[in-house]
């Protein structure tokens, strides 16, 4: 019997040598005359174990990792094809506590199936949601999404049902669905994992969104830094066309949906939805003022559903298992699960899908295992480069949208980046301003000039040049940027800056931050 070995093709695994591991397994199997079927999968999200090789061992999958090509011979020697014991062995994947303690809802398939295989997708419940949605009217689809309590997973957490309803109600003969796959926040990679590990789920979600508002065209706007996701999406879309999930007549329903991937070109700002639309239209990625909302006037001026990848990828499950099933997860107004991503200076970096309610400390210590360097974790930035730095005193905050805004932080896309106690928080504040200056589209004044001046002001503070005057100026500047900027780049960059200053004033040589007229 041919043994099945699973080696991820996820780009994180590839960055750790998964390609050569897969080759080595094939070679070694050939040499030994043991028939092996190497299946390429997405990642389980336990990146500290990548490349994580799994084998089919009687109903469960035995895990070995991190495997280097040089380990392969010894794995064969240990009989890993039958789940044999080895120093790199972890037993059944599902039993690894990091994994066992998750609620894998959206990521149920990721790391398990071959993302290029439509059969794998269908075998695991794929396209059942679509089949159900095809029997519903647009309003019913939108109602279902509303009932599920799904909120935008891109960061703003806007109720998805309302967004879809706005696009449904906007009169137009042409509408669009756009997936925001411009996942540019440091510390986030869940979109990439979905696209690399379960692309049909995104495609299915987009088709459902198309059915909801009678949009017949969709685009995935993908950042150019994700070539593997691009490749996987292109293959999956081609397959979906071949099997009439996409095209002029979806599964014989008479409904049409077409889907393309378009690449960004190295502009963080294009993760902002209006800049994304400009970019998709082939223009400079400049922020558009709102109103009008994209749901009313989006791509080429037409009503457009524009959602983050995970948001759209959540739809198939909602339609497969019902709104109530999804809504059952979570707490308060944060329903369902969120794929948290823990990274930075952390022992067990990876993806943790959990219902809302887990605390930051749980994520850092229970899952993450504390810092990689073994030193105390001093600060965690949650929600990407525009997210606040959170000090240890707030690690007990539940990972929930409302709880986070309560401490003037944001959950964003669910990424948490840990820093140990060697971090210089004034340098991190400077970095935030510098990042803003690098990535500002240049439209609004507070961001265009303010971010550059912000770097200069922090430099003066760090150089102790009129420190108190410049600290006051930094307070005023962050206030202006927070309240005066056109979009979330300039408008949120005060979060890392001010939080760093407020929680770690010593790094700025600041004595009393209360005097500083900080915006929060």
């Amino acid at each position, binding site marked *: 019997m041919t043994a099945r070995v699973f080696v991820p093709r996820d780009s994180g695994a590839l960055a750790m040598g998964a390609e050569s591991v897969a080759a080595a397994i094939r070679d070694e199997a050939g040499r030994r005359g043991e028939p092996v079927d190497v299946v390429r999968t997405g990642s389980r999200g336990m990146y500290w174990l990548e490349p994580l090789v799994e084998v089919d061992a009687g109903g469960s999958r035995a895990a070995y990792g991190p495997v280097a090509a040089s380990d392969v011979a010894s794995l064969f020697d240990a009989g890993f094809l039958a789940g044999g014991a080895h120093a790199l062995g972890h037993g059944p994947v599902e039993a690894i506590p990091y994994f066992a303690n998750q609620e894998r809802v959206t990521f149920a398939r990721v790391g398990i199936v071959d993302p290029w295989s439509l059969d794998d997708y269908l075998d695991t419940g794929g396209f059942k949601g679509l089949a159900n949605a095809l029997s519903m009217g647009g309003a019913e689809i939108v109602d279902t999404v509303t009932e599920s309590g799904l909120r935008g997973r891109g960061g703003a957490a806007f109720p998805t049902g309302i967004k879809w309803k706005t696009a449904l109600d906007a009169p137009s003969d042409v509408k669009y669905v756009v997936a925001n796959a411009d996942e540019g926040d440091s510390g986030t990679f869940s979109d990439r994992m979905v696209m690399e590990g379960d692309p049909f789920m995104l495609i299915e979600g987009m088709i459902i969104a198309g059915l909801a508002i009678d949009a017949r065209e969709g685009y995935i706007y993908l950042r150019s830094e994700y070539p593997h996701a691009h490749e996987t999406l292109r293959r999956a879309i081609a397959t979906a066309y071949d099997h009439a999930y996409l095209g002029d007549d979806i599964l014989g329903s008479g409904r049409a949906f077409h889907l393309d991937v378009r690449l960004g070109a190295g502009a963080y700002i294009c993760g902002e939805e209006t800049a994304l639309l400009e970019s998709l239209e082939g223009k400079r990625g400049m922020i558009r003022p709102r109103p009008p909302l994209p749901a009313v006037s989006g791509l080429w001026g037409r009503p457009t559903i524009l959602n983050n990848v995970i948001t759209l990828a959540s739809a198939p499950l909602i339609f497969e298992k019902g709104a109530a099933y999804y809504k059952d997860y979570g707490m308060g107004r944060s329903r369902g699960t969120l794929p948290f*991503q823990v990274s930075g200076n952390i022992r067990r*970096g990876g993806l943790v899908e959990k219902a809302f309610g887990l605390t930051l400390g749980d994520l850092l210590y229970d899952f993450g295992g504390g810092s990689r360097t073994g030193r105390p974790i001093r600060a965690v930035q949650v929600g990407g480069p525009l997210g606040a730095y959170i000090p240890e005193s707030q690690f007990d905050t539940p990972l929930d949208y409302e709880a986070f805004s309560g401490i003037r932080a944001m959950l964003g896309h669910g990424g948490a980046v840990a*820093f140990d106690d060697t971090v210089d928080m004034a340098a991190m504040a400077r970095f935030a301003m510098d990042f803003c200056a690098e990535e500002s589209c240049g439209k609004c004044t507070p961001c265009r000039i303010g971010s550059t001046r912000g770097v200069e002001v922090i430099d003066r503070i760090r150089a102790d040049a009129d420190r108190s005057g410049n600290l006051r100026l930094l307070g005023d500047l962050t206030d202006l940027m927070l309240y005066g900027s056109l979009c979330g780049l300039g408008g949120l960059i005060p979060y890392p800056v001010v939080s760093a200053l407020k929680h770690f004033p010593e790094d700025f040589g600041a004595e009393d931050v209360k005097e500083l007229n900080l915006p929060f």
Partner: protein
Amino acid sequence: MPDPDTDATRSALALKLADATLETLRDPRGALLPILHAIQEEMGCIPESVIPAVAERLNLTRAEVYGVVTFYADFRTEPLGRSVVHVCLAESCQALGSAAVADAAKAHLGVDFEGTTADGAFTLRKVYCLGNCALSPSVMIGGDVHGRVSPGAVGELIEAGRAGP
């Protein structure tokens, strides 16, 4: 000094790439970015001299195309080294010492960010986030991402990524 013959050849090639790209698109609107990607992939950059031809094909002005080229960090009007070394400087990588990795890369290559080695083999650039944060620090060399890169290992990785002329 612009060389009209070279410019004409380049423009012809750019037009060919533009047409080939347009064929792959269902909606020709918004074709500019895909076309610029195709040109850059083939020609290593988007020479200013091809911008008028691209503009003409898409019925845009050259000002518009130029504005787009200069907006996006990916696009450049001058070619880079044969292999590009991207050091991620986003927060997660910083948390694990990407600054030291960057310094090591600079020292190895003898250039600063945006610099190209004298032999044209490498250009060093910074990047914000490769999506490999759980395996920081990350470096991308010639399109291949490497995780958990230590300052000591970066030189070897770079050399392994050296592309032939």
